[in-house]
């Protein structure tokens, strides 16, 4: 941002804030990238982490030398399994997701609309990276939280009235956590749940493509 100079949340701050949204004893799928870091701020045993490639009970990264290329998360990073974890096949894993058995997905996002539409899999005119599990997670999990920078590097809005990027799922996002704060899609705009220290409502509004309330 070129404008002065509120204290924006770092990605660590965002991950710490997102972790506070996770109820004890819940089943959570953390998306690839920034959401994966949320695990660093969860007390041991607080929640069970689901990986759509076929595991419930993701543990920390393995100790150097213990890594197993056939034990990975959905981002293809080597991981461990917590005691009580279980592995299963892809069809079973997505049945858990689609069947509404996963309480919460925390997903990276490119755009979120005031209606709670999520766009996170393709940029118009950009290289097609694929869909992966994004659409299943966004439409199947009981709650969806989006995590992203509040604006693009070119200062374009990412919290918008209507998504211009291809949708991942419609009307699914209940909360957006950005470097400026926490915002809830409210239909015609976004409700300000919390602002990062020093971020004014005016600044947040200037950075948002729909009315804040």
């Amino acid at each position, binding site marked *: 941002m070129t404008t002065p100079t509120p204290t924006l949340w770092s990605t660590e701050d965002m991950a710490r804030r997102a972790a506070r949204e996770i109820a004890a004893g819940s089943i959570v799928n953390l998306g690839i990238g920034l959401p994966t870091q949320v695990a660093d701020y969860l007390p041991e045993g607080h929640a069970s982490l689901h*990986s*759509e*490639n*076929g*595991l419930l009970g993701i543990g*920390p*990264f*393995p*100790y*150097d*030398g*213990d*890594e*197993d*290329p*056939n*034990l*990975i998360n959905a*981002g*293809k*990073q*080597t*991981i461990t*399994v917590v005691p009580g974890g279980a*592995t*299963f*096949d*892809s*069809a079973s*894993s*997505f*049945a858990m*997701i*689609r069947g509404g058995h996963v309480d919460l997905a925390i997903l990276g996002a490119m755009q979120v609309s005031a209606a709670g*539409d999520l766009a996170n899999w393709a940029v118009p005119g950009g*290289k*097609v*990276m*694929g*869909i*992966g*599990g*994004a*659409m*299943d997670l966004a*439409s*199947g999990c009981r709650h969806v939280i989006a995590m992203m920078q509040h604006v693009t590097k070119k200062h374009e809005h990412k919290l918008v009235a209507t998504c211009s990027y*291809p*949708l*991942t*799922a*419609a009307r699914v996002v209940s909360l957006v956590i950005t470097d400026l704060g926490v915002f809830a899609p409210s239909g015609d705009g976004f409700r300000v749940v919390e602002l990062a220290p020093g971020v004014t409502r005016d600044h947040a509004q200037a950075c948002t493509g729909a009315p804040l309330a």
Partner: protein
Amino acid sequence: MTTIGRHGHKVVASVADALAPLENGMTILVGGFGLSGNPEALIRGVIERGVRDLTVVSNNAGNLGKGLALWLRAGIVRKVICSYIGTNEDLHTRMASGEVTVEITPQGTLAERMRAAGAGIPAFYTPTGVGTVVENGKDTKEFDGRRYLLERALRGDVALVRAHTADRFGNLRFWRTARNFNPVMAAAARLTIVECDHLVDTGALDPDDVHLSGIHVHRIVHVPEHENAFEYRTVRKRP
């Protein structure tokens, strides 16, 4: 008259023997998620077998020049049905040039299309993709106030599967997250070929510990050595 059932002698001596029935133009289902749980020797063997114009169904179709990227580099693939391309440059370049047609499907829908095929279900309604480009050209229907779209089962001519342990009937056990798409691929093909790290005698697996019944397996080749490539080797320091 004596007939020979499909579930007689399944263990074959070599990858080449296992792949002998392959033909040009076949649809081949390949287990694996990224580079984990890949049937590595069968993938290499298909290139040596010399078939081409293949339609490949697999979650990623290789990455980092490994796995199914070998087929792309060998020019034997006409079409890929997958969920994710990501950093698979071998697929990006061939998709851009038009050499390979790519159909991208949500990952859960991809898994369910094979599960359905293996279970004798020709199509199914799913909420995944409703209101997105995935819905284009598909029938939709409302059930209990929510809209779903109709997806078709996806059957293969051949499935190539990686298992940790197989007995001689083809009962399989998998290792950790190497299981992934392997069981659904196995059930959805007319001919399923398994590459196993460990081959044990029939009876060595407890029936309650079998992950996939040998009813879905037709040929078994024992391959003790695998590369098992890392994509992202993430570790922490020992305390």
